[in-house]
């Protein structure tokens, strides 16, 4: 069962929509996305308080992180638990470069992405020879290892030397921002634009040769190998691409937070990150945005409401189990389906007596999902 196509969401009709006559559905989708982006870029900033501007900046940055992890999990089938470690590497490199040099910010973003890509590839290269579960475990240990190093090395705070950390600094200078995005709203816009570029980068990969290779690898590695695909090379490519975008996100995070502390990246966040990606939906690019909202927007809301953050961790835990057991497509896949089902149910209420059809729609969809679940695994 080749099921990647139906779970890719807006990008599903691959060859058909290529021609000049773009079909109406993808055109509608494209315009909806464009309008939402324009709203996010221009309408939102004046409306938001400083608190929400901060939060939405985090959402934009973390959407890049979840994009990278979603790419690995959903497109290639590599479950990485070390993506937060990759983010902190990017943040560290970005902060170090921003303190040490006066290069333009955008150049630093790219450099941080490249350095993270190299480090990430070097670390995962040996692990890539392993498959599935073993890769997940080694990345979990990697996350543990990197968090130990971070705790010892600390994030740069304007000191000298390689680490750039000086524990006895009284006045800690802030990490600089680009001249055109010094204020919070401007930096928010900047983050959104960087996120868009990263999404386009990944999208371009998905629509071309590597995307097809990844889809083949995800379906079955032996048959991908038999079809002449260099599986290790393409898996490494996916890892490198994910590490690159995550590294860029890290450098962006350095500018957004302006002060970085290793205690802000506890190891449970690595697991939370995978949890939100699975809940948001790893098979669709929209899932990455939903995941970023779960990761960064919900905690901010809970803080306002005075609910302890622990409830969110519990929710994520339940969500992961539920998603894996019943809805492998996550919210991005499930929400439209549920809405359709709701719409059908409501429309049926108008036409027929409800008692006749009460049981059938849910039963039918349940079996459909079970079949799909098997395929997506």
């Amino acid at each position, binding site marked *: 069962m080749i099921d990647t196509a139906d779970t890719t969401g807006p990008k599903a009709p691959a060859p058909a929509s290529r021609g000049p006559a773009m079909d109406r559905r993808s055109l509608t989708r494209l315009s909806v996305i464009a309008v939402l982006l324009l709203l996010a870029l221009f309408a939102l900033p004046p409306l938001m308080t400083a608190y929400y501007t901060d939060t939405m900046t985090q959402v934009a940055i973390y959407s890049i992180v979840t994009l990278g992890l979603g790419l690995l999990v959903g497109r290639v089938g590599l*479950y990485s*638990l070390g993506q937060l470690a990759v983010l902190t590497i990017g943040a560290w490199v970005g902060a170090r470069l921003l303190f040490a040099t006066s290069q333009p910010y955008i150049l630093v973003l790219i450099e941080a992405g490249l350095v993270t890509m190299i480090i990430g590839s070097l670390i995962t290269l*040996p*692990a890539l*020879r*392993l*498959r*599935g*579960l*073993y890769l*997940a*475990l*080694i990345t*979990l*240990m*990697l996350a*543990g*290892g990197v968090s*130990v*190093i971070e*705790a*010892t090395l600390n994030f740069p705070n304007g000191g000298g030397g390689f680490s750039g950390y000086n524990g006895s600094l009284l006045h800690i200078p802030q990490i600089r921002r680009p001249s055109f995005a010094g204020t919070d709203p401007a930096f928010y816009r900047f983050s959104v634009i960087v996120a868009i570029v990263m999404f386009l980068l990944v999208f371009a990969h998905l629509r071309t040769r590597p995307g097809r290779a990844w889809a083949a690898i995800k379906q079955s590695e032996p048959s991908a190998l038999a079809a002449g695909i260099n599986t290790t090379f393409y898996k490494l490519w996916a890892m490198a691409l994910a590490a690159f975008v995550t590294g860029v996100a890290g450098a962006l995070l350095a500018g957004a937070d302006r002060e970085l502390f290793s205690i802000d990246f*506890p*190891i*449970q966040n690595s*697991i*939370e990150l*995978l*949890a939100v990606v*699975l809940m948001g939906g790893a098979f669709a690019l929209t899932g990455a945005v939903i995941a970023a909202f779960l990761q960064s927007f919900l905690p901010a809301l809970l803080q306002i409401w005075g609910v*302890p953050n*622990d*409830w*969110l*961790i*519990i929710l*994520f*835990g*339940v*969500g*992961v*189990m539920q998603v*894996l*057991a*019943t809805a492998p497509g996550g919210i991005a896949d499930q929400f439209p389906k549920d809405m359709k089902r709701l719409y059908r149910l409501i429309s049926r209420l108008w036409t027929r007596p409800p008692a006749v059809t009460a049981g059938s729609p849910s039963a039918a969809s349940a079996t459909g999902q079970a079949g799909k*679940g*098997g395929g997506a*695994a």
Partner: protein
Amino acid sequence: MPSWAEFQPYIVTGLALGGLYALSGVGLVVLYRATGVLNLAFGAVGAMGAFIAYSIIKAGNPGWVGWITCILFAGVVTLGYGMLFGPALAGRGPLVQSISTLGLALVLFGAIDLAWPTSGGQSPSISFPTDNGGFTVGQLQVTWTQVIALGLGIVITVGTGAFLRYSKLGTAMRAMANDRVITATLGVPIRRVEAAAWLGCGLLSGIAGIMLADLSALDDTTLVFTVVISSLAAALIGRLRSISVTFVAALVIGLVHDLITPITQLTNYQDMTPFVLATIALLVMSRGQVMTRSREEG
């Protein structure tokens, strides 16, 4: 480089820690072989049990009530999870099944933080009466708790080995590790065998949780993650297959971890021990390509 005398006390603590990692590693391997699930919530279940034991003891009950509650709690929760999600995720492959246990780990982690907030007041701790008694070897002070920890590791490893080899249930587990479908066809009640494996793994996580709370610290991050990572590393070195290799690897991890302590340049990095050792082991082993082809093909 510190002198030999400075290393000596860490041999004892390292072996005690290694014994508990061995016990945990064996629990993980047995469950994995029998059900195909790597229980990543192992540490979280034990941690929650230990916190419950702490509250029970703090309320004035005798110590053994707390310890037994901890072990039973861990067993029941793990069994409950296995009964609920084992069938639901069966056939989805070890990867998805194992990632799902991370969900349980998150739930328990959040619940621990909620019920026993870390900020303020006296930090919780567990202590056994055996902490104070002990004996000396040369100039080394060894407590009975440390002896028990290492002893439990040995007993559980040997006991599990014998159980798998000689008992009927153990044979059934080994058969399921080989081929689930054929085992079911032969009339083995695989659900019941799986339940037994889940329960066993849970009880072991409870034991590991309460012992580590005493030997190490009653701290949720340590218990949830460090323990899992260390015993996972041991289990990985044993290729998720051999409990004797797991046992040795666990002792080595515990020893190396603690022996690094006196070396000031490396002290901060000692928690990387399991990661480094497991990576080296995986690299060496992946040459044979044995690991990549285990159960995951089926």
